[in-house]
């Protein structure tokens, strides 16, 4: 397997392959953490110098052309793979050169520099769709994975996303999260309803119908509903809405003042939120019925926007106790908060990564807001965006993508990028904000 070294330049690879020196190939293979025990395509996601794996996704074929568009199916996979940040998707020849028995001519594809090939076919039976997909290792000239999925034709995008999930699992040992949804707030002048869409922006639909302001949606870990702050009673209270019926909202906490920025604990049994019962917004832990379990922070600062570490042991949050909003971490059982952001005067909106190794947050840099990451110990601060103003970051459940709000095209809308910010694309055309990424949803 080749984990791509950052330094292995595309042109160099091409030349290497053209020169065709078996020797050169052998050296590359040895240099690049080749796992000889399992000869398969593998991206080692823990390698910090990881480059992108060049991959081809051929147009899907069918003996029933017209029932579905084979190039659309392939483009769903291409978008998924690109947004994972792990692949460099290369144009595949159309039609794909095939041998007599219908296999791809991998030999003729190797000069493209592509490491892997995805090809597939589909069959439509009434309202049922069957998709068959194969993953080839081009350099080893072998089949790596064959998958077949069947489902309703109307859900063809979901079926293809599931396919890409398993492709990613094969190549990285970690399943993708391409079948997930993003909840976000759609901006209308007087109302802010919660909408849902697939992570790539398709299948947009409204969830709530409250006709009032709604803020800060957060998914229940079971994926069956969301908590959010709503002005249904004229004040910012914490509510729950089940996905099964967006009109059946349930009140969780309506204490005096703020009941804001609620976030479910990883096991779903508790909620961290900001309450201002004693006039200053502070972080509290409540149960799902709304009873207070404990008050986590004290002092004169405004404390808001809690986020749980994935093990449920710590909470990161925003406080302006030092004069400007900064990010702090405190054990969930209480204790002395530790400030982790030291540069820039405005750091807000932390979201703890699913692997626990990073926090993504918003930082004000040169008068504009940018998405940044930092390690929980305050080290390794990095800026991921630089166009327009960018806010509200939220991790995908596999930690490989980040959704956020950007105004770079003149209005606020939801973008998705890979965890390193190498690919950043808008996924919604509707004006909106506060994306919340769903857990992996079982269907």
């Amino acid at each position, binding site marked *: 397997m080749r984990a791509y070294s950052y330094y292995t330049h595309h042109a160099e690879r091409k030349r290497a392959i053209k020169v065709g020196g078996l020797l050169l190939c052998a050296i590359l293979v040895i240099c690049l953490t080749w796992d000889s025990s399992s000869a398969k395509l593998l991206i080692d996601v823990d390698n910090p110098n990881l480059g992108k794996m060049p991959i081809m996704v051929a147009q899907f074929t069918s003996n029933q052309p017209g029932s579905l568009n084979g190039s659309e199916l392939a483009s769903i996979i291409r978008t998924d793979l690109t947004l994972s940040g792990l692949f460099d998707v290369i144009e595949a020849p159309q039609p794909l050169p095939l041998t007599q028995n219908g296999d791809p001519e991998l030999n003729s594809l190797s000069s493209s520099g592509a490491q892997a090939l995805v090809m597939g076919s589909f069959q439509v039976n009434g309202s049922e769709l069957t998709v068959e997909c194969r993953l080839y290792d081009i350099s080893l000239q072998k089949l790596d994975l064959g998958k077949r999925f069947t489902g309703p034709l109307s859900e063809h995008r979901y079926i293809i996303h599931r396919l890409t999930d398993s492709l990613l699992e094969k190549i990285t040992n970690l399943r993708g999260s391409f079948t997930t949804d993003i909840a976000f707030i759609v901006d209308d002048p007087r109302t802010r309803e919660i909408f849902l869409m697939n992570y790539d922006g398709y299948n947009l639909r409204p969830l709530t119908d409250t006709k009032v302001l709604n803020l800060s949606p957060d998914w229940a870990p079971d994926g069956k509903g969301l908590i959010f702050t709503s002005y249904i009673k004229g004040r910012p209270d914490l509510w729950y809405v089940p996905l099964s019926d967006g009109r059946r909202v349930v009140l969780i906490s309506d204490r005096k003042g703020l009941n804001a920025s609620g976030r479910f604990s990883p096991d779903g049994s508790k909620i961290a939120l900001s309450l201002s019962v004693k006039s200053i917004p502070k972080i509290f832990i409540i149960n799902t019925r709304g009873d207070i379990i404990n008050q986590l922070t004290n002092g004169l600062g405004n404390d*808001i926007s809690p986020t749980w570490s994935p093990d449920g042991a710590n909470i990161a949050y925003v406080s302006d106790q030092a004069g400007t909003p900064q990010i702090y971490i405190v054990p969930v059982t209480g204790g002395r908060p530790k400030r982790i952001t030291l540069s820039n005067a405005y750091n807000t909106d932390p979201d703890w990564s699913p692997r626990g190794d990073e926090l993504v947050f918003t930082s004000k840099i040169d008068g504009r807001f940018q998405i940044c990451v930092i390690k929980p110990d305050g080290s390794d601060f990095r800026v991921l965006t630089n166009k327009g103003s960018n806010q509200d970051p939220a991790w995908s459940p596999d930690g490989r993508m980040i959704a956020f709000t950007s105004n770079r095209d003149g209005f606020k809308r939801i973008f998705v990028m890979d965890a390193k910010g190498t690919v950043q694309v808008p996924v919604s055309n509707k004006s909106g904000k506060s994306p919340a990424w769903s857990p992996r949803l079982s269907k």
Partner: protein
Amino acid sequence: MDNRHLTIYFTALMFTIILAGGCAKKIVRPNDMASPGFGLAGPGSVVESELQGIQSSLKTVYFDFDNYSLSPEAQASIDYDAEVLKRYPNLMVVIEGHCDERGTAEYNLALGERRAGAVAERLAALGIPSSRMNTVSFGSELPVDPNHNEEAWAKNRRAYLRVSK
């Protein structure tokens, strides 16, 4: 050029208003109020049409960016509002805290809460019973001026007093 003229005109107007306010007594007694509606009903009994008059007489309190402390101008506005509220002891008041669009929605929610709280605290110190007051933060969700410039932001960083029977 038109815009510039307007700005100069507007600045001059604001200056005159501030000067006038400064020269006159800082706290205008309810008796001095010119609004129609005032003084028609006795304390405590307010008719619907009057409520509107009282509402429009109340002053909005303005704040600096990322700040909930009360400037001398803000304090003067609250002192004025306290006098209005004292005249109608049966009216309830909701103090709405608002922010400009810059910054994070959630952090702005906290900031708006503190702005509303700061106004409520001063009103209480001036003798308005806490039982008459409620605070609600709208963060940066409801700007009065939807534009994206300093002038709009200054108008949007505010605490608005909404009275009801």
